Structures are given as C-alpha cells and as structure tokens.
C-alpha cells in the first residue's frame, strides 16, 4: 500500500526519461533568432593560426555567405560549425561556438546529434555508390528509421524539397553515380535534408558545376530559406550578392567585415573589403 504513491510517481518519471533518451538528438533548442553564435574563436593547425578571434552571429532562416580569397579561413570556419575539422590532425579550436543554445566544443557534445542538426554539402558532390533511394535513406536509417512507409515518405519529401522529385521519381533505384554533376550535388542536398536539419553548411557547392546547375542550386537555396538556415562559402561574389542575406568577408584568418549583403557590397566599411569586392585583388 505505501508503495502506491511511488509506483504512480514512477511511470511519469519513466516517461520523461525515455523521452529524453529518445530525443537525445534534439538536444539543441532552435527557438531563438540566432542559429549560430561564434565567439572569439581561434583555430590552429599545429603552430599555424588559421582563424583569429572570429565572432559573428548567424541569424536563423537566412542565407549567410562567407567570401574571401583562397586560404583566408572561410572554409575552415565552416567546418568548425559541425566539427568536421575534428578529422584534421593537429587542429585545435579555442573559443566558443554556440548552436541551438549549446557550446558544440564542450566535452560532452554528441557529434551525431550535432551533425544531424547541422548538415553539410561539400565542394565536390559526394553521393555514396548506392541507389538514389538508398542515398537519401542513408541518414534516416542510421537514425533508426526502418519502416518502409516512413522511408518512402522521407524520400519523396526530401526530393520535393530539393526540387528533384520529377526528375528522379522514375529512377530511384538507379545508381546515384549515374546522375550528372549538378544532379549529384542537389541529391547531396536532398540527402542532407532527409533528417530535417536546422542548419545546412555548404562549402563552395557550385564550384565544380556548370552555370545552369549553379543556377538551380541557387534557386534551391532560396526556396529552402524559410525552413533551414544556410551558411554558404563561395568564391563567386556574384553568387553571394544574388542569394545571401548576410555576407562575411574574410582575409588572412580574420573576419574583416560582416553585415547585410547589400551593405557589404554597396558600401563596405573596410578598405580591404572594398578592394576585394571591386576586384583589385583576390
């Protein structure tokens, strides 16, 4: 009898616990207006300092472009945002990067959860040597989704979001390697979308593509803007001007200028940024 209360109390606690465990992937809270907040970040490759005291706030559901000459650290910074630079030997990060209310460089960070929420698209399209269907299902499957109906739903939704459904619905079973370069890259975006990330990082996603495919990817970015936050590194300044809401200019590991794209391109505050944008170097 006197256990009764405890017994009643337990179920509610148990319910909470599995929920926490089950939702371990959703440890990030993206309700605020800022998606990513970078605070005083220094990054070293061995003894070489690749990033110097970078601080910036990336707003939610907008497109932020990072521009600058080669070797300025823009790709490096992008890779710190989902910790892909962990793969680089001798890479050390100081400072804080807050995503969804958490410091992602804290020791207890769950990399799977982080990368599920912060997807990435690479410079060269990298579809797996599997069918289109299996490529998109790859991440959902690793996150425990096995039901065919759910997977079908994800494939259809992701491909529709990536505006590829009509092109690909009849060749879902064909190898993804048989697609054109532009299609492969958009498939990679669809693949990243399959686990409903909050943020997608794009590392020069169009540098290996022709102008028409580039245009399609840019359109895609714009159409995704109300669902995900996009951070894009690009060599192509016109691209930044065309699609980005915010633009950050990097030089030699420093962030020289950051602001609304219009302002950065029409009235840059910093002389170096102006020189770059007007084509005096770079």
């Amino acid at each position: 009898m006197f256990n009764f209360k405890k017994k009643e109390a337990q179920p509610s606690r148990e319910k909470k616990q599995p929920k926490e465990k089950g939702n371990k992937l959703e440890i990030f809270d993206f309700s605020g207006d800022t998606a990513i907040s970078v605070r005083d970040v220094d990054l070293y490759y061995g003894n070489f300092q690749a990033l110097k005291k970078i601080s910036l706030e990336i707003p939610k559901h907008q497109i932020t472009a990072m521009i600058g000459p080669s070797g300025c650290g823009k790709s490096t910074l992008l890779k710190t945002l989902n910790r892909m630079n962990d793969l680089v030997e001798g890479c050390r990060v100081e400072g804080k990067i807050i995503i969804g209310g958490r410091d992602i460089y804290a020791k207890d960070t769950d990399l799977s959860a982080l990368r599920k929420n912060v997807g990435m698209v690479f410079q060269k399209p990298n579809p797996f040597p599997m069918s289109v269907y299996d490529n998109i299902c790859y991440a959902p499957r690793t996150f425990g989704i096995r039901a065919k109906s759910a997977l079908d739903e994800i494939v259809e939704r992701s491909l529709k979001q990536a505006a590829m459904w009509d092109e690909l619905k009849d060749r879902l079973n064909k190898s993804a390697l048989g697609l054109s370069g532009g299609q492969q890259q958009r498939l990679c975006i669809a693949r990243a979308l399959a686990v409903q990330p909050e943020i997608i990082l794009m590392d020069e996603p169009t540098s290996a593509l022709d102008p028409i495919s580039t245009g399609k990817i840019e359109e895609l970015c714009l159409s995704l803007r109300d669902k995900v936050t996009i951070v894009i590194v690009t060599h192509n300044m016109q691209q930044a001007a065309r699609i980005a809401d915010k633009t950050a200019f990097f030089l030699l590991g420093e962030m020289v200028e950051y602001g609304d794209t219009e302002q950065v391109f029409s009235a840059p505050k910093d002389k170096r940024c102006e020189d770059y944008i007007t084509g005096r170097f770079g």
Partner: protein
Amino acid sequence: MIKINKTKVQDAFAKYIFIVCACMSIVAVFGIIGYILYASVPAFRDIGVFNFLFGTLWNHGLEDSDRWDITQIYGILPMFVNSIIVTVMSVVIGGAIAIFTACFMVFWCPDKFHLRYAGKNKAVAKFVAWFNKINLRSIFDQIIKLLAGIPSVIYGYFGLSVIVPILSAINGGNTGLGILACSLVLAIMILPTVASLTKNALEAVPEQYYEGALALGNTKAQAAFNVVVPAARSGIISALILGIGRAVGETMAVNMVSGGRALFPTGLFSFIRTLTTNIVMEMSEAKTGSTLESALFATGFVLLVLVLLINLSINLVPKEFKGKRGHKVLKGDANADIRFVKKGLVPEILKYVAIACGALIAFTLVYLIVFILVNGIPHITWNFLFGESTRTTPTLLPSFISTGYIILISLAIALPIGIGAAIYLSEYSKPGSKVVSVIRTFIDTLAGIPSIIFGLFGSLFFAGLLGGRCTLAGAFTMVLVILPTIIRSTEESLRAVPMSLREASYGLGAGKFRTIFKVVLPNAFAGIATATVLSIGRIVGESAALVYTAGMLRTTVPNALNPMNAAPTLTVFLYMCWAEPMAANPAMGVAEVGLNQAYATAVVLLVITAILNLLVYLIERHVKKKKG
C-alpha cells in the same frame, strides 16, 4: 642519313625482342597446361575420366592385387571434397579475420603511442619519448608483409607444434591433426593476402564518402561499416577470391597437419588428403611412366582447372554499383511515425571486433617468431650452419649453396625476360589494346598457378630434360614462378615514370630505344630492385615447386657445388626434417633430432625473410623520400 637508319633499325629490332619477352608468359601458361594435360592422358585413358573424377577410393598399393581393377583404385573425389571443405573453412575464418584486420588498419590503428611519463628518471623519459615516436601503422603494415613472406613450411611446423596440441586438448587427448588443423593453418596463411588487398581496396574508396557519412551524423564506426566497406566490396570480393585460390593451391603446410588419408571427412578431426597433398605425398613413389605418375598429373590437371576457374571468376566481380531492384512504387505515408533516434550498436561492436582481430594478428606473428627463435637459437651451431655435410649428419651448407645457385640462375634468366615484357606492356602498348590485355591475362594466370603445379611440370619437363632432379631444374622451374612478380612490379614502376620525361627525351631527338634505356629504365630502378628482392623471397620460401625438381636428398658440399646434382634448398631441407622421419615411420611424427634441426633451420629462414622485408621497406622509403 645513316644514323637515322641505325636508330630506326635498332628501335624495330628492340620492339620485337620485347614482344618475344612478353609472349613468354603465354608460352609458359600454354606449355604448363598442355604438358600437364599431355602427361595425364594415360591416366584418363586407362582409368577413365568418370572413374577418376568420381571414384571414392585412392590406393595405388592395390595395383598388383588381383581383386582390384585399375579403374577402381584411382578416384580423387574424396580429395576434391576435402580440398573444397578445407578451403571454405579457411576462407570463412581467415577471410573474416583479414577483413576486420584491414578495417582496423585503415580506421582505428593509432598512428603513434601516446604514453605519458611523469617521473624524473631521464633514461625512462627518453625511452618513452622514443617509444611514442614509433609509427604504429607502418609497423602493422610490416607485420602483415612479414606474415606473407614466411615460408609455408614454417607455418606447417607452427601448426604441428602449437595449433595441433591445442586442438588435441580440445579433442580430449586424441589427435589434433586433420581437417580443422588444416583449415586453421590455411586461415593464417591466406590472411596476409586478403588483409593487404582489402586494405588497398578500403584506401581506394574516396575520402569524400567517409566525410559525407560523418557529416550526416554517423559515428566513425557507422561511416566505416555502412559506407566505406560496402563501397569497397568489389575489391574485397576480389581479395577473397585470391585468398581462395591460394588456399586451394597451398601444399606443404597442409600436408604436414592433414594426417594424409584419402577418405571423406567424418568430423572436424578426421584425417584428410587434399588434391595438392596427394601429389606431394605420392610423387616420391611414382615410377616414371607408371599409372600412378600419370594419375598424379591428372590430379594436378584437375587442381589447375579448379584454380584457373577460381581466378578467372575475379573478372565476374562487378566493378561498379548496379541499381538494386525494389522500391518501385513509393507508398509514402504522410502520417508515418518519423522519429529520429540514435542507433547503431552493430557498427560499434564490429569496431571492437576489428580491433580484437588486429591485436590477434599482431599476437600471432609475435608468438610465431618468439616460438621459433626460442626453440631454434639453442640449436644453431657453427657446425650445423657451415660444417661438412654427410648423409648421416647433414648441415645447412649444401642448402645455402643450392639456394644461392637457384637465386642467381633463375634471376639471371627471369630478370631480362621480365623487364623486357614489362617494357613492352608499358612502353609499346596502346591503351585498350587487345594484345596487351591478353598478355596481361596470361601473366595473371601464371601468377595464380599453385606452386605444386610448377613442381609437377618441372619434375617431368626440366628434370627430364636435364637427366634427373638437380639444382638447375629447380632454377628453371623457379623462373616460371617469379616471372609474373617481376613483370608486374617492373611494369608498375615503369608506368609511374612521368610522361613528361619521355616527351623531353623525344623532344631532344632521341629514339624510342634510347629513351627507354637512358631515361625510363633508370627512373624505374627502385621497382626493379623491389621485384628482385621479392623474387628472392619467393625462391627462399618455396618448397612445393622444388621438392621434385631440385630434389629432397641429403647431400655433401662437393655434390651440391655442381648444379647438375640434386640438393635441397633451405626450405626443402626444413621440410625434409619432417618428411624423412615420417617416411621411416608414419606414426612417429617428428623425431627429436630432426625437430631441433628444423627449428634451427627455421630461424635461419626467418632471419633471411626479415632481412628481405627490411630491404623492400628501405627501397620503398627511399622512393617516397625522393618523391616527397
């Protein structure tokens, strides 16, 4: 005018010489297959193909008996079945361990130790600092290469004195020889081949696949086992097929732990005889021209066909992903329960399996080496190594001499032919040329032929030509064995010479001949040196091809000095230490004196193998340094 003509003639002449060299491999393959088929015709004719292939009794001792007909006593079905069973078991065990080991080497083998030492003892601190500098990955690479280089007879002894006693204990004190022992020894032997080829396949998978999987939230283990390993599957399957080919063709080590009865297996510990061991066991009793001899050649022919079929099946492995069937109609359910949860226990478990396999391999090698050294070093004496050899107390000196002869003679023949063939393949071939692909197929075929087949061929052809088993016959046989290695390794290094160097030479007006000899070959020197060292290793480790060509006979130094006499090489001598007491009394096993000699010989062989491996490592490092 005259000069130009001279160059032209030179170029044309050289081309034909290179073509002839390249065609040698075709001649060799056809020669071997044709000759063995020719020698087995009497058996097929007298015994009958059906009786031979599907007969269940093999006992040539009954030939004189009135109750048995010759068609009844030469059936190889039990041996065929045994070969298949042993191969399957060893590939399942060895292949799995090898694939996991390769995964360990590629994904989890740490580069360096990370030991910390807080104490003040300077010597210890220095040692720890030195210890931490060791490159673990390259050491593991070397471990696999060393395992691949150890002669198979040493594996036989390892099986006899380590694996068999353990199995015997498991079998409740009864014998540990038999089918399981064979499979385990073979598993260890095919492991390095499968592991290193799997490692190459895994490393050839583009880095982007791995990164792409990580960026989708995979753990490293998930990325490795869900993306990289499947992407490398065609390479892994090819590696397994090569492993199968090797297991089917392996002779000596299997012979030593098999028990030797030509019966169908009844359990894990039943004595067996495989196709290969049948040849090596009975060949010493076969008189020239007898039905037994022909039947053994017929066994060899069946084995050859089996191995060729296995090796050719590599070409059937699809290189690229082909679409899967299924998912034709999507039946997406908008209300489907899509809840992402963290999963993936299986890859994490596999990761620890991989690490355990890596540790197991390292332990096996270290144990094998320590075991041989501990048992062998006490018995190494000056007299045993270099003393006067007699029939009653043989020493290693005649074996050193015959091994040296075989190395020198076979390299002197195989190197020019091999390099010439490689030059033709890399310098004269057009991409996509049919001739070249045919030649290459034949080289691969030659490389895949088991050494016992070379031994059979050499024993009849070369030894017959030279009037009996002798060192020279062994050397000629080994030319065929090492030729593919030399061609391939040289061709690879020729292709690695940048095109721009050739263009520069042509641009200065040099002809093809001059360009090849003054520019291309010198730049490919490292590859040729590697090929030479590898060939020496192959010769030193070879036994099955030499037992019935160079001979298995105790001999004296003066006799061994004449290459027209028979003399055992080091590895054959090691095999004799087991085979002689066995021949005297099959129940006896290895006699104590023989065993001591065997371990001492094994130490010598291990040292030679280690030195050769070190040489290859140094050459490769030298090339890397030059490039980087």
